[in-house]
């Protein structure tokens, strides 16, 4: 399996993590992507944007203030 695309959106405030993740989803088209964010509202918003684009939120885990979202399509 190919390594997932890593999108590091740490240090960015809402809505930038969503926009960057959204851009990457469009660029990839399909596959597996991991998004890192430390913006409180972003995980939920990224999950919503992913759903709207036909991607699936596989998992979401928080560690030391950073949330790692795994997306697949």
């Amino acid at each position: 399996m190919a390594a997932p695309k890593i999108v590091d959106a740490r240090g960015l405030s809402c809505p930038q993590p969503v926009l960057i993740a959204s851009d990457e989803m469009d660029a990839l088209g399909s596959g597996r992507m991991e998004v890192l964010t430390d913006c409180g509202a972003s995980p939920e918003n990224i999950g919503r944007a992913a759903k709207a684009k036909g991607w699936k939120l596989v998992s979401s885990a928080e560690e030391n203030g950073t949330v790692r979202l795994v997306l697949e399509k």
Partner: protein
Amino acid sequence: MKLPFGLGAKKAAAAKPKGHDASHARGVMAFAHTAEVIRAEAALKAAGFPVRVMGPPPDMRTGCDMVVEFELMREPSARRVLAEARLAPLAVAPVRAGMLEPVSLFQSVDFGQWLMVRAANMKVTVDKETRVIVNVSGGGCPDVPALAELMVGRTLEDAPAPLERGQTLCSYALELAFREAQRLLPLDAGSAS
């Protein structure tokens, strides 16, 4: 220092600036719930009153964080309009210094491909080319996640107006941001071009 609405400052009052005499004095009405504020604004506007929704001064905080600003001299007729709509303000007070900025004030940020429009505590971000809503955030009201779910992924034409589905302060602010985004990104300048 320029105060909001030019009221409340002794210097400003002493100078009696044009347009701020008693006949132009503004007042605010507080209501019990956001839904009542929204209905009051709609009823008064429909009756021809120049009103707007804004944040209240700290000492006028009620259960709802918004008030309706109106022409103080027209209070009796405004109350009649409200009574016909089965609405009664909890309190009425003159506008003075310390009032919060009106929630109708917008802030927009251009992110290149996207435009974010903020109204009060709510933000909506739209793809400028496709006019698709890519993000809805802010607030903290219970209906925001549901509203975001309905709006994200849809165009400014297809998305439901937030006030059709919600009745909180957040949905009101989101409605304002949504309308402003529609104004800033008209259909003929977006995907239809």
